């Protein structure tokens, strides 16, 4: 009698599948660029015809940047960290010093650049101003800066705080037209 062959379960060798999957995986790993969709958000002023807003000179903080990326704040040559200190002092003056703002609500930062100013410098200044305002708002809410930055505007309780701080210390920065001198 014939000996019955042992039954074997047919098996397909699947080892190569991993290799193929790895190839594809590596392709997508290399091709992926995690898109940078972050940035400094600003609202431009709406186009308006000759609206003369009268602002007391004491309420305006002047920043001038020339084409050599040198910065003049209130007629004093400064660097970025010093600028932040000056802005904070100016906005939170509350009428004490005659040369500085009457109240945070009235304080306006005027930023004037030259046509030759580099974009990197401009973003640096804008970033510094935003940072100064974040610090001041955190101070107003009496919380550390990290906590302020962690506030989430989708959370109703947080949103109230944010709006409160925004109302007390509004971010008013005006971009003046760049001067034509190159």
């Amino acid at each position, binding site marked *: 009698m014939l000996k019955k062959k042992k039954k074997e379960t047919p098996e397909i060798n699947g080892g190569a599948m*991993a290799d193929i*999957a790895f190839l594809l995986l590596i392709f997508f*790993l290399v091709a992926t660029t995690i898109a940078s*969709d972050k940035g400094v958000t600003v609202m*431009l002023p709406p186009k308006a015809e000759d609206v003369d807003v009268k602002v007391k000179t004491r309420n305006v903080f002047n920043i001038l940047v020339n084409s050599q990326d040198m910065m003049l704040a209130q007629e004093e040559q400064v660097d970025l960290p010093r600028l932040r200190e000056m802005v904070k002092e100016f906005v939170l003056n509350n009428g004490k010093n005659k040369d500085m703002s009457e109240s945070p609500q009235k304080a306006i930062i005027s930023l004037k650049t030259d046509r030759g100013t*580099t*974009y990197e410098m401009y973003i640096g200044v*804008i970033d510094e101003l935003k940072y100064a305002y974040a610090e001041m708002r955190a101070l107003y809410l009496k919380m550390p800066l990290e906590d302020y930055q962690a506030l989430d505007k989708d959370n109703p309780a947080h949103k109230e705080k944010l709006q409160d701080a925004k109302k007390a210390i509004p971010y008013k920065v005006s971009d003046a037209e*760049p001067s034509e001198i190159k």
Partner: protein
Amino acid sequence: MATFKKKTKTKQDIPTSALPDIIFMLLFFFMISTTFRESELLVKNSLPQASELTKLEKKSLVSYIYIGEPQDSKKFGSEARIQVNDVLIDADQIVQHVITEKDKLGEDGDKITMSLKIDREAKMGVISDVRQKLRDANALKVNYAANKRLRFE
């Protein structure tokens, strides 16, 4: 004494058939998260760094404008140029561009966010021209794209 060769019943090889499954999982993740650049860059574009960043909320409402020195400087010169959707344009054409972009969005046209991807070397002259045109076109929400920078203080 007779030696008994011990017969091992256990198989030597480790089953690897689950490996492809794991790899495929990773693969699908990357396939989904990959976004191919929708337009080829004609201008240099290395973004500046900033710390106070906000995330762009609704991707569908965002329209991109690239500004920088052309990569092909023989053909387009070395002055900073503006690129939208694969073509280099002049500042005067921005208004038209914004209007078409707004039309594409239909009802949400007014909520459009312009993301400006500007090379760090670019000069403010061309940027302020663009800014004026965006004001003319009533696209007031602007996001200056930047990379994250950490502050140590």
